[in-house]
């Protein structure tokens, strides 16, 4: 599908739901790629993928396991070199960005961030490295950004604890806070809701939506949990190697992109405007 269709559709949706976000204009995409192909060794993971991810929207990347969601985000973050294709960050080729400037403009959250003996506050503070460089004296503006990130993620309560002593969910929120502390216009988040209990998943979904709408951030996140992903503004649906489609959730559902991607019929229930995936399981026998 073309970029203009996506933009128009998103605009219609925003008007229909009277959302506070500005109408999307895919013409000024925060990050985009053209004909991207990426392979690991001899295995082709992404083939000829072209995307436009707009600012001010939360876009979720969905698709089956191993379809290349993480690879797509890593490539857009400049961590994996594509075989072919081009990436534009803020209209400028990704490779032309100076290292520190790029790190201030684009923040990336790994699917599995390492263990560390640092405290949660220190880990979150690392999000400010690109703002101070190697010698990094922490300034007022850094402290303020760290405090905002802690408040947004509810990590202040265990800020002084070592990362290794936190639970998986707490750790995940610390890493998310570290990414937010960069205060970058583009956020690439690989599975930000893993390890989180349902209320915290909901908090993160609300947070990502808020980041996009209130701060105009371009939020692009790979999310395997469809109930969370369908709360996003836009979807990028990946099948094996191929892009199935990109556009609003409404378009994705109308085109049944999910069934095409997962290669199995996917039932989505519309529950008062909230979309839920319904597994095709028989009810439990004692029901």
């Amino acid at each position: 599908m073309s970029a203009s269709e996506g933009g128009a559709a998103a605009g219609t949706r925003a008007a229909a739901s009277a959302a506070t976000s500005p109408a999307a204009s895919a013409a000024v995409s925060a990050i985009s790629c053209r004909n991207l192909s990426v392979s690991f060794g001899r295995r082709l993971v992404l083939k000829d993928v072209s995307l436009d991810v707009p600012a001010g929207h939360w876009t979720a990347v969905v698709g089956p396991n191993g379809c290349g969601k993480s690879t797509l985000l890593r490539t857009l973050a400049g961590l994996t070199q594509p075989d072919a294709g081009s990436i534009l960050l803020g209209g400028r080729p990704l490779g032309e960005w100076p290292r520190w400037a790029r790190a201030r403009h684009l923040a990336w959250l790994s699917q599995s961030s390492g263990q560390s003996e640092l405290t949660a506050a220190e880990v979150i503070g690392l999000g400010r490295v690109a703002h101070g460089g190697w010698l990094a004296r922490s300034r007022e503006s850094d402290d303020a950004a760290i405090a905002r990130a802690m408040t947004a993620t509810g990590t202040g309560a265990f800020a002084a604890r070592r990362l290794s002593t936190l639970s998986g969910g707490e750790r995940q929120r610390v890493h998310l806070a570290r990414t937010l502390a960069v205060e970058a216009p583009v956020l690439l988040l690989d599975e930000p809701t893993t390890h989180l209990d349902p209320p915290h998943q909901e908090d993160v979904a609300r947070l990502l939506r808020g980041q996009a709408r209130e701060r105009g951030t371009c939020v692009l996140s790979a999310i395997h949990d469809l109930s969370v992903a369908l709360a996003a503004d836009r979807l990028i649906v990946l099948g094996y190697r191929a892009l199935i489609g990109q556009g609003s959730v409404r378009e994705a559902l109308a085109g049944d992109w999910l069934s095409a991607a997962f290669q199995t019929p996917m039932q989505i229930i519309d529950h008062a405007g909230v979309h839920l995936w319904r597994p095709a399981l028989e009810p439990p026998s004692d029901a």
Partner: protein
Amino acid sequence: MSAPPAVDLRHAIRGRSDWGRLAVWVSTCAAITLVLTGLSLVVGTSSAETSLGWIFAPDAQSAVILWDIRLPRAVGAWLAGALLGLSGAVAQGVFRNPLAEPYLLGTASGAALGVTLSLLAADASIGGLAWAGQLGVTGAACIGAAGAIVLTITLARGVLETASLLLAGIVIAFLLTAVTSLLLLTKPEIWRAMQTFLLGSTGFLSWSSVILLGIVFLVCIVPSTLLARGLDALTLGEDTAQSLGLSLPVLRLTLLGVTALGTAAAVGQIGVVGFVGLVAPHLVRETLSVNHRQLLIAAPLCGGVLLQAADLVSRWVVRPAELPVGAVTACVGGAYLVILLWRRNRVG
């Protein structure tokens, strides 16, 4: 998610580092160092009473023993230990492995080969290697250690692949050890001289070695502490560190350079003394909750104290003879690691 009061957050952010406890640690280490230095002045081939007498009523000969033999030995041992502690802490950070140690890149084997070559060359029967004999044991060890690191990095094709570097380090260490052993087979008479070096000894230390070690220590500690935040970032993974804007090649090359230089200098002066570089950072982490900037300050202090203490023990136990200091550090360090292992197993 409810936000805790802003005051608490500010405290958590500013209080992110435990500088207060670090200050206690630093002063404790400094105090122990002073005591150990004092003690090492009175331990030697002569009895402690005689040595004490020298301090209060020195004559020309005793002044030389005290101030030109024992004092540089104590200070030099501290500096060498500090270099090993620093190199160990940096190596563990760069390799993201708590079992990493300064000799990982093949330095010890390279230094041993260098010394063997220089001893062989000093033996007049071998021509062509005369230039190596001129270097002396220290210079040969330094060059050998540096050469081993260059070989390791070349074999690993750069510094970016941790696993390749570790493997290359092991390969080079084995290769150089094999060459050393073969050379020693041809000349059994230098085997004894080699042993002193392989087991470590502070006996070669002089004021000029102290000055050299001091300069190397300064050259090493400054860039390491400046790049400490990069090591913090590395604990989250190499990709994350890169996404934070850090240049991995710059970070790794500089820090591996520091480890290499620090280890080569220490090995050159006191021979192969094991365990100090491995244990010193561990001891710090066990007692203090630290980020890398604090670790890189505390680990050298700890290494210095450890090596000074080991040196003192090695000169005390079988006095007036001496034990090899490397044997003492191996016993103490090994015992410590075993305790650490038991404690972990119990916790696990």
